[in-house]
């Protein structure tokens, strides 16, 4: 079973990030589960969400303590939260940053992606969560592009409309297409 932890700030969509990843994994014919740690939400406060992906039915209901992969939606969180806490030995941290990975001295494998810049290009706003999911899929090969696009429709078509759903699919294309 693969366990993933997502760090974001309130309003950045960390919770949606987890949900979309779980939805996409489901469409890839896996068992999946996603849930947030709920606080009394405030914009900008550190937020965490979790994803589990498995070939077998997932019964575990505790929080994720030993993630294999950590997504960091906002690099300033690294100063506030220990994003590597409990990370497995061969774990990976994917950070939204315009800096190279070697600039982050985290004692583990790090990848960076400048999701904010791409988001400005696609959405005209710094909405990074879809791009971070795309980066995750591209780096790990754990979620297919087709399932992610399906997940965007499921997440956004009803609640936000076709325009937003299409933009998010475009964001997935943008990041998974580019090398």
């Amino acid at each position, binding site marked *: 079973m693969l366990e993933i932890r997502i760090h974001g700030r309130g309003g950045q969509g960390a919770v949606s990030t987890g949900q979309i990843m779980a939805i996409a994994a489901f469409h890839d014919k896996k068992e*999946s*589960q996603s*849930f947030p740690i709920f606080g009394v939400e405030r914009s900008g406060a550190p937020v965490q969400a979790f994803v589990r992906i498995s070939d077998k039915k997932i*019964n575990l*209901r*505790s929080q994720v303590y030993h993630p294999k992969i950590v997504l960091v939606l906002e690099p300033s969180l690294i100063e506030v939260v220990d994003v590597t806490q409990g990370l497995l030995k061969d774990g990976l941290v994917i950070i939204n940053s315009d800096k190279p990975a070697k600039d982050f001295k985290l004692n583990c494998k790090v990848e960076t992606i400048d999701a904010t810049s791409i988001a400005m290009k696609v959405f005209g706003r710094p909405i990074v969560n879809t791009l971070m999911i795309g980066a995750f899929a591209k780096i790990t090969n754990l979620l297919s592009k087709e399932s992610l696009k399906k997940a965007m429709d499921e997440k956004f078509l009803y609640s936000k409309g076709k325009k937003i759903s299409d933009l998010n699919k475009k964001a997935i294309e943008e990041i998974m297409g580019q090398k």
Partner: protein
Amino acid sequence: MRKIIEASTAAAIGVKLSRPQVIPMYPITPQTHIVERLAEFINDGELDADMIHVESEHSAISAAIGSQATGVRTFTATASQGLALMHEILHIVSGMRLPVVMEVANRALSAPISIWNDHQDSISARDTGWIQLYVESAQEALDTVIQAFKIAEDKNVLLPAMVCLDGFTLTHVFEPVDVPSQVNVDKFLPKYKPAFCLDTKKPITMGPIAYPNSFMEFKGAEHLAMKNALKVIKETNTQFKNQFGRGYGDGLIETYRLKDAKYAVVCMGTIVGTSRVVVDKLRKQGKKVGLIKLKSFRPFPIEEILKVTKGLKAIAVADRNISLGQEGALFSEIRSALYGKSKTIVSGFIAGLGGRDVKEETIEKMFDKINNGGTIWLK
């Protein structure tokens, strides 16, 4: 059809498929997503029901009495302080023998304020005459609400029912769920035919004064109805299993890897899922352990508990609630069920209050201290 949805959505779909006609509601965290989804279903024309926006939970459950009394299938949902505010009316729903169904998104009670999960809210409503069914997954939440209407409305029961699902720990989890078709649910749960209702053509009085010469008879009848529910819950689970291909133990309890077990943990709600994982882990180490999931807390399945604990050396009872100064409610019930009839050691564990995460290690500690015989707080 298999989908991946939030457990609150699954719970709301279960309600929609049961076709209630009136939903009086007042939002409270972490129950809100359930009634939000129902409002969407009504708005989108998927559910033909009237939603009554009231000013408090006391009014929500009072409106539910009014609507159910006129012979209409009625649903509401609440949590925590909301359930506490309903408390005096909860007795009236059951006393008037109105089969209202309510989802409780279990949450701690203040003070101090906590929006997170434990079972203190519904356990504090134990003696209100409501059936209480606890679920462990989104699938079970969906399936159980459909069953709850059938159980509550059975002519040998006619009591209201709560479907209790862990706030956040379950309500806010996205996971795969098999959504049954409306046609199949209609077959399982036909159109509501009230056993009695307010009708100007055939006037009756509900809930009048009962003098000392009749009050005990009313309560005796309710008590019997709750006992009857034991059988009805089992039958309903069997029917559900036959029609939908999945069931939950015998409807009252479910056992997991208990066959040759010497030790077992007993629990309700989402702790069950994590306990399954721990049982598998300990079994791999060669330990003879199993699990007893208690689904029906009211009515309490005394005979079934006696049967499945036979021969066990010790059991660990996990309580996500506390009767302060005493012990957990499930522990009291289990010990009382076994008293004088069993040599099994019963140990109680208080865990997961106010959203404290129940980890695999928490359950492992229970197995470690299973011979204790008292009550231990697992922080």
